[in-house]
């Protein structure tokens, strides 16, 4: 199906899915004035009242506070620029300065809440998954970058981060949310990338804990009081959503693969996870594995 049409110089996209909390707010016309915050090849961030709304092609997968549109898109080629005003109601998003319209009437709500899964298979496969991740990382750009300068490398190339992440893990093992938050603070905003590596890893830890229904899940909320001053706006949103258990559909799929019972899907899932972004995929996976291992560690307080 061709979802993109060009009509009288206006490019029209059709939205397919909208994050469910955003869906409700749009339906109720409760959005403050909106402007374009930043534009990437396959992503537009809109800003409204201190939060970001992401617009991306459907193939990017569901995003918290995101609007997905059908068809491939290169937003930079469509004259969308940061700061442009945006009209937004329950029928459409209109960036008229760029001749861009996104119709919302056919979109379905999508829940960013990560489903709780059974973690009983994890201890038996943890070693194999770490090995797979290690091997895949060696083949990836991000892995290669780890052996060059820290400016191009991911989280683990920065001195001391392994110990800091280990401190988060130890606090998680004790289900000590306050200690986990304190250990997480130095990682916030740390490392290369628009979402700094430390943030990606912490979001990964939260994804693991929420996916397992672990009592330490949500610990990050206690570390986010001044997050706007400590990391980028994009990353602050990532961390806020993570603390609430809201993640991208890519993360949902990764956790489903890691916690499922089908070993055959693991290599592909890890490959896709690491391939995301420059270092974000690898950093996020490091966090997810740390979170799963900590949650499965002996001594973990049981819920039942």
């Amino acid at each position: 199906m061709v979802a993109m049409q060009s009509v009288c110089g206006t490019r029209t996209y059709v939205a397919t899915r909208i994050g469910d909390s955003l869906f409700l707010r749009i339906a109720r016309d409760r959005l403050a004035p909106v402007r374009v915050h930043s534009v990437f090849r396959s992503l537009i961030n809109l800003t409204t009242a201190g939060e970001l709304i992401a617009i991306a092609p459907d193939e990017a997968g569901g995003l918290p506070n995101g609007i997905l549109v059908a068809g491939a898109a290169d937003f930079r080629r469509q004259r969308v620029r940061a700061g442009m005003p945006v009209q937004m109601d329950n029928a459409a998003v209109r960036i008229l300065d760029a001749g861009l319209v996104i119709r919302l009437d056919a979109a379905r709500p999508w829940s960013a809440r990560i489903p709780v899964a059974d973690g009983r298979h994890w201890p038996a496969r943890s070693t194999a998954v770490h090995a797979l991740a290690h091997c895949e990382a060696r083949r990836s750009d991000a892995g290669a970058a780890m052996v060059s300068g820290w400016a191009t490398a991911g989280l683990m190339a920065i001195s001391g981060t392994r110990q800091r992440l280990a401190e988060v893990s130890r606090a998680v093992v004790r289900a000590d949310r306050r200690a986990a938050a304190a250990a997480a603070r130095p990682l916030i905003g740390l490392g290369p990338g628009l979402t700094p590596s430390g943030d990606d890893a912490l979001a990964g830890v939260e994804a693991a804990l929420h996916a397992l229904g672990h009592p330490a899940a949500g610990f990050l909320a206690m570390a986010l009081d001044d997050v706007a001053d400590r990391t980028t706006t994009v990353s602050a949103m990532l961390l806020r959503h993570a603390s609430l258990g809201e993640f991208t559909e890519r993360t949902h799929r990764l956790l489903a693969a890691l916690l499922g019972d089908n070993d055959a899907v693991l290599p592909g899932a890890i490959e896709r996870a690491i391939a995301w972004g420059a270092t974000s995929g690898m950093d996020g996976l490091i966090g997810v594995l740390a979170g799963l291992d900590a949650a499965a560690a002996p001594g973990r307080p049981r819920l039942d």
Partner: protein
Amino acid sequence: MAVVRARVFANSYRDSVELMQIAATIEALDGIDRAGLVMATPANRDVLAAAALLTDAVAAARPNDLVVAVRAVDDATAEAALNQAAARLAGPGTEGADDAVHTDARTIAEAVHELGTANFALISTPGSYATAEAMKALKHGLNVFLFSDNVPLEDEIELKAMARRKGLLLMGPDCGTAIVDGVPLGFANAVRRGTIGLVAASGTGLQQVSCLIHRAGAGISQAIGVGGRDLDERVGGAMMLDGLERLAADPGTDVIVLISKPPAVCVAERVLAAAAAAGKPVVVNFLGGDPVAARSVGAISAATFEAAAAIASALALGRPMPAEDDRLDPSVAGAVAAALGTLRSGQVRIRGLYSGGSLAGEAKLILKAMLGADRAATHEILDLGDDQYTVGRPHPMIDPRLRNEYLLAAALEPSTAVILLDVVLGYGAHPDPAGQLSPAIQAARAAAAGEGRQVAVVASVCGTDADPQGLAAQEATLAAAGVLLAPSNARAARIAAEIAARVVGNTRHTADAAGVIGTPLGARA
């Protein structure tokens, strides 16, 4: 005296891939000692300070500001680097000139659109997606290297028929290695360029032949992998025929080598007919195949990978054809005798623990030829790269742990006399396989010694001096661990067979049709 300079780009939002590319470019410039390109969060400012890259402007920057900081040999170099970063950041993003190589396209159609002149796709997705991606690539006029496995046979037949119609190559599925126009793909080795063209339905077979050609002083024009099922009756040798035609027409190729397990009879006829029409010398290395059929069409039959490499190298270099020499290398005779002297009664079996499937296959054939089918069947040659061992695990050429476990178990088995190994180097393989294997070998031998036994360990290294791991260094590591080294897999297998035969002292005479794989041991006892 080094200088530190930095520039702040307020509220700059570029995706991480772009940032990493720019940072890598700046770091690689002459005269730049250190570079940082990060968002100016407090944590990153601390890191910059620790790296002595913090300036006043950076200290005052905000988390949504992008900072580029460099330490350079002088002001001019620093400014030039910052200007280059600024130019990249001011551009339209990842649509710059470098995109011809570094595209962030997420579909084949996007990549074709962005690159413009692309004619080749490497596909490595889970098997269930591979067919669709390969089909898309072919439809866009791209030759395909299909690394993915678990592609159904019916899909392979369809893809190869489509490739033939379009005049394109489809290498694979499950194609582990190739060298195209000097570019190594998959698990390939670093070999000299030259005039010998290979077409192989065997991954480690191609690697072994190409490495031995390199070591003989000759080189490779093209090495085309076709996937292990290409010579199946239903696939019909579609890509071996295609590869053969291409090499026959390639002015850079003087000698052609075909490598495979024995094809289906009707496929063999077709391939040999094409070889006869190639107009160039063709060496046919169908492991365990009938040498008479190859010779009848004027091709040259080679029974082992080593023989194929030796014959092709001689042809390419204008040297005399090698003698069919499968005698035990005199330099290892002493070591073999020493190994025999340490074996106890009951230690009679060879246990081959292979990472390369084709190398394991070659070893089995050599044992069969030297010991006879019945005796050979009492030994065990495992291909640990086979699907049954790799579910949920990396291939043993990447991750040595599984083989190390088998190594210990083999040493502890009282009947084990010889452990036979391959060590595969090259791109994609483990960065130090011998370094991983040696402690395991020593531990295994110590465990056997603890039970009063010595075990002989025989190995060959498939690699070259130009491989990232270095052939000499890898062999030295293994030798230091007491491994009896052979220059090829065929020779390693012969050493193992020799030990096994002498342990029992009752060899059988088998008449191999080619007389090349293994001379009956009794003939020279």
